[in-house]
């Protein structure tokens, strides 16, 4: 047994968890039905019973170093069977929201979780910046278009509206910024979560391939034997591949991907896949959330709606944009281009480093951290 430790509950932490979805977590009587019905909870990485206890007691230190909220895929079995109706699944969700805020060094994440006004304000602000980018400068967007003369208004000539060289620079800058934010947050997550364990370098290396495989395949969903696990895995897989594709297309291969005219190009095919994937997966998620199908969707917070909602609108505007382009509707194409980016950019800015998107990185990372911690403990 470890030495006696002074326990100082963080009352504010409890209040914030209860506000962020864990409203019923205090009702838990520690029967551990949740941990036992969960097919992802293992003897080594057990949850959610223990995490809920820590949340009930406001034990910040223990919660911070614990990555298991990310190991939960929220199948909802625990909540469905909780004898206390303490809603453990949603308590884990609340913990993820809390942890996302804790990993984020800018503090924006926390602000946005705590306040809807902040979240919407940031989104609108970024949207506005995008719109302004297309409307204010003389040599870009509508300014450029007005210089290009009537031809560019009669037929689609994206070069005359949003030259891909410029967009590519913007893309890259944005990607770099978000990447830096996300990675620094991820690094913080790493540091926070591993600070209670000494992990040798070899262990890190040994588990690296698993990290990559999980990140790409989302295979952990398949380990979950809850009723909807296949569905959940499938749409996460679709989402991740769609994302990866569009990311690569937009950030790396934009000059090749962004076609300038209204003709069909083979290089758009991947874009079509990505659009379909993102559109389908987000619509599916929104539909389930609206129908409250399954435990996972019974309790939705604004932040839960925001991500799939924005994703859907992004994909939809992307598709519409492409349709207009193929129909050679020049002005609608340009307008939709702006709308598309006015949705996509804020979504990425807000969700990638600060919001729900982050879990696409945090989860594989958490699985990795859990694995290396376990290994490290075993080697010790």
């Amino acid at each position: 047994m470890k030495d006696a430790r002074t326990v100082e509950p963080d009352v504010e932490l409890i209040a914030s968890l209860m506000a962020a979805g864990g409203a019923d977590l205090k009702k838990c009587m520690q029967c551990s039905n949740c941990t036992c019905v969960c097919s992802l909870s293992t003897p080594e990485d057990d949850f959610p019973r223990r995490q809920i206890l820590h949340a009930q007691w406001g034990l910040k230190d223990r919660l911070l170093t614990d990555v298991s909220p990310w190991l939960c895929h929220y199948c909802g079995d625990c909540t469905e069977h909780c004898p206390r109706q303490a809603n453990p699944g949603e308590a884990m969700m609340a913990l993820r929201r809390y942890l996302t805020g804790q990993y984020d060094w800018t503090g924006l994440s926390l602000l946005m979780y705590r306040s809807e006004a902040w979240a919407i304000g940031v989104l609108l602000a970024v949207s506005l910046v995008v719109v302004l980018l297309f409307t204010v400068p003389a040599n870009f967007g509508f300014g450029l278009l007005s210089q290009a003369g009537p031809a560019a208004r009669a037929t689609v000539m994206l070069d005359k509206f949003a030259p891909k060289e410029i967009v590519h620079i913007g893309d890259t800058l944005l990607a770099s910024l978000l990447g830096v934010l996300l990675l620094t947050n991820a690094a913080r997550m790493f540091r926070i979560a591993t600070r209670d364990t000494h992990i040798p370098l070899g262990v890190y290396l040994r588990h690296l391939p698993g990290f990559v495989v999980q990140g790409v395949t989302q295979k952990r969903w398949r380990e979950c034997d809850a009723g909807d696990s296949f569905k959940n895995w499938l749409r996460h897989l679709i989402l991740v591949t769609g994302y990866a594709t569009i990311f690569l297309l937009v950030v790396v291969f934009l000059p090749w991907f962004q076609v300038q005219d209204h003709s069909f190009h083979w290089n758009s095919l991947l874009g079509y896949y990505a659009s379909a994937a993102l559109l389908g997966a987000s619509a599916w998620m929104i539909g389930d959330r609206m129908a409250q199908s399954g435990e996972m969707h019974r309790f939705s917070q604004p932040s839960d709606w925001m991500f799939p909602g924005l994703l859907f609108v992004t994909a939809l505007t992307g598709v519409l944009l492409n349709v207009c382009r193929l129909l050679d509707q020049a002005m609608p194409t340009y307008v939709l281009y702006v709308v598309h980016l006015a949705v996509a950019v804020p979504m990425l800015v807000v969700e990638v480093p600060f919001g729900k998107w982050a879990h696409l990185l945090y989860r594989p990372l958490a699985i990795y951290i859990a694995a290396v911690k376990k290994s490290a403990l075993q080697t010790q």
Partner: protein
Amino acid sequence: MSAKLGVYLCTGCTIGESIDAAKLAKVAGSECHAAVCRTHEALCGDEGRKLIAADLAAGTVDTVVVAACSPRFKPEEFNFNHGTVVERVNLREHVAWCHKPQDEDTQMLAEDYLRMGVARALKTEAPKPLEAEVSKSVLVVGGGVTGITAAIEAAEAGYDVFLVEKDDHLGGRAAQLYKADGIQASVAAVLHHPRIQVFTAAQIGKIEGQPGMFDVTLDAAGGPQTVRAGAIVVATGWAPYDASRLAHLGYGSSPKVVTSVEFEQMAAKGAIQAKRVLFVQCAGSRDADHLPYCSSTCCMTTLAQTAYVHEADPEAEAYVIYKDMRTPGQYERVYRETQAHPLNFFTKGEVASVSPGADGRLAVTVNHTLLGETIVLHVDLVVLATGMVPNGMDQILNLTYRQGPELPVLQDGFPDSHFVCFPYETRRTGIYAAGAARAPMDGNQARQDAAGAAMKAIQSVELAARGRAVAPRAGDLSYPSFFLQRCTQCKRCTEECPFGALDEDAKGTPKPNLYRCRRCGICMGACPERIVSFHNYSVEMIASMIKAIEVPEEDEEKPRVLALLCENDAYPALDLAGIERRQYDPSVRVIPLRCLGSLNIVWIADALSRGIDGVILVGCKYGDDYQCHFTKGSELAQKRLENVKETLGRLQLEPERLQLTQLAINEWDKVPALFDDFVNRMRELGPNPYKGF
């Protein structure tokens, strides 16, 4: 006494196929001198009963022996007018259904049973009830929630009540609660009830007498006063466990460690000033070094008190350290609701120490918590959820009983009772314990318990008024009479009566108090001079039944075993063995006893001197978990048997010829092996050398 004996043999239910009824009728006629002997194939039917009724009406018969099924069946069918002695001989369950049909041994068994039944019938008189002037008032001792409720409930049923309280006001511990639940209204109701006379600041000087006629001397402010009551409800309540014995929990060393009772008073005074309050459950309870039992109420008390913490300061935190949260029944919902408060913290754990900590706080160290390690909590106040100690059976009643002034205690200071089936029965007839004096319970339960005890008190006076016994032989009209001229003042009866019914005069002669008597016959069994007998149950009666057993000569190689059975449990078990058609050795002759404690050792001497090879006693389980309806019967029988065994040696008899077996009513499946093994052992020992003397 020349009884006109009628013997009626039933041949139904395969009795007729099993034994030769004609031969049995011959025994009735030639040996038993029956005036009438009739055989019918269904005596319990209309036709059969008419046969008997006609003989009774004609006056040719006044004593009836029905040889048919077990007396546990068809009692109404064979109940003729009052005053007619009807004796039942169990030819069905104990003969036909459990022994080989058309067999010599079976026939001998049936004949013996008939002889024994006739012997019993001839020694039976119809009992006449006791008659005396009986008070139907109820004395309630204790003016807390239980006593108040008992008083009101009894008064509302139409009985006069005397309520005695040692303090100068009513209400007890309930009145000291911060949020007392209607206790003041109940106090007012008691004070204004026309049937209730309240004595506050009063104690009981002494109680003399017996149910229906307790003379109670009260030491009250105005000097001693005597009232007569018929029954007594003891509602003396509880006291918190002495927290000064809980030094390891810091009590006494810091004013910031209080008991839940003290915390309640702090709440009432608005004196709770603490940001953090920690509740220690089972403070003294569930602890081999303190109270081994669970005090049942402390978990609920603590849940209520966490609300006082938040009421005093909405930002204050409440910690509850429990062994197991115990909120049975609908109380579970209270637990869940209390848990939901964001500033309530619960964990299983064991408080190892409470010591001064930083900033003038207390550092509480808790082992084995759900948090997986030993934790230290710094708190402003520690509340010990101390347990309930029954307010004892000490200098309360001051009974002038030979066996002592108070209710006998079984364990942990609670009054002795058969606490599963008959929770109110104590070992003092007409005196019933209620509320926390009887078992740990909360106010709600205490109210219901008070009503139950009041019911029992009323019942006991009503039964006394009709000259009848109370439980377990409720309604019995028989009672013991003592032929005191032959008494040798050995005091065995006065010592052994489990109910303290017998007092003594200065010389040690018993002074029976028949209204205290439960009619078990333990005094009858205890008496070496055989001076105690009932109208329908006596030493002589059983002795004559033993004498009625025909003991075959040694060379016939037919052993005989006498089985004395408790009629409450062992006898029905034997019936069940018969109903299940279990077969066993036909050498056993069964005589039921009211209680094995009524065993008089003279019967053993009678049996052995008549050449019976062995005597087996079958009675209820004894010890801490006793099942004896009279608490001590089978245990006393065992003691007497041990004494007899010592003397057997002098008579050149093996002690193995005597055995007492404890058998529960549902262990009927063990009956065949029990009897077969015993008979076989007798065969191994060889015949009783006294055969033929």
